[in-house]
């Protein structure tokens, strides 16, 4: 009887965790989908070349110390085959809000028509960004 109760509560816990995972996945998809609707509003995007939309701020230490050098290295590796669009989230708070950017650095991987396919909250290494770009090229 007691084992039956434990199993029932275990199933209940698994159900709650499962539903939470589904909700998290849906929330992430909603952020990307919302960003996709806005992708046409990036005036500096050149169609035909995949890119990275990079949100930063002037006082972001990680951006200066790690994210920017990683992006520069990637641009050198893939010379001319990608575009990096840098946005100062403090100068363009509306754009940051529209793209659901809560922290910097945040990078969106854009496909050849400018649609976001991946999002990285926080530092993303050159290798990771390269692998994400390969999937959308």
């Amino acid at each position: 009887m007691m084992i039956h109760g434990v199993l029932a509560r275990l199933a209940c816990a698994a159900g709650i965790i499962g539903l939470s995972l589904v909700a998290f996945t849906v929330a992430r998809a909603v952020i990307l989908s919302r960003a996709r609707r806005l992708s046409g509003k990036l005036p500096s995007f050149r169609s035909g070349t995949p890119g990275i939309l990079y949100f930063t701020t002037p006082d972001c230490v990680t951006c200066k110390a790690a994210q920017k050098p990683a992006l520069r290295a990637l641009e050198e590796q893939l010379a001319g085959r990608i575009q990096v669009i840098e946005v100062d989230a403090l100068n363009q708070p509306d754009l940051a809000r529209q793209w659901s950017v809560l922290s910097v650095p945040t990078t969106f991987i854009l496909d050849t028509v400018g649609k976001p396919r991946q999002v990285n909250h926080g530092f993303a290494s050159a290798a990771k960004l390269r692998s994400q770009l390969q999937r959308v090229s």
Partner: protein
Amino acid sequence: MPDRLGKVDHSSLRVTQGSIIVLLLFSFVLNSPWLVAVVAVLMLAGSAVSRPGFFFIYLLLLRPAGIVKPDVLPDNPEPHRFAQGFGGVVAAVSALATLLGAAALGWALAWLVIALAALNLFAGFCVGCAVYYWLHRLQVPGFSKNPPAGVAPGMRPRP
């Protein structure tokens, strides 16, 4: 003017969040409000001495064994202390409610603590810290710290 930041070892915070999640899940599955009470006491005691509630697991076991490495970031310790204290109070009310017969309310509160700890552990968002910074903006006495520069209130700073 930005605040001078202290140093916070986020690995010890993550160990505490993981321990809270595991123990509260066990307490739910085993229908043991006493275990919730133990978690609440550790969280509240941790806040009282400005340490993560399960710091001892990290300090005595996981760090010496090299299982978890330190992740010291410039951050304000006060919001984390507040968040843990807030979580501890919710866990204490949860245990009390369950022991007094209001099981549905008690377990709902325990799941709330699990959800908030999971949000912090997996998404890097500390709801209690965000509440702290919100109270600071409202100029509530005792809530004196600004979020680190370039970091949204409640979000984990980056190295």
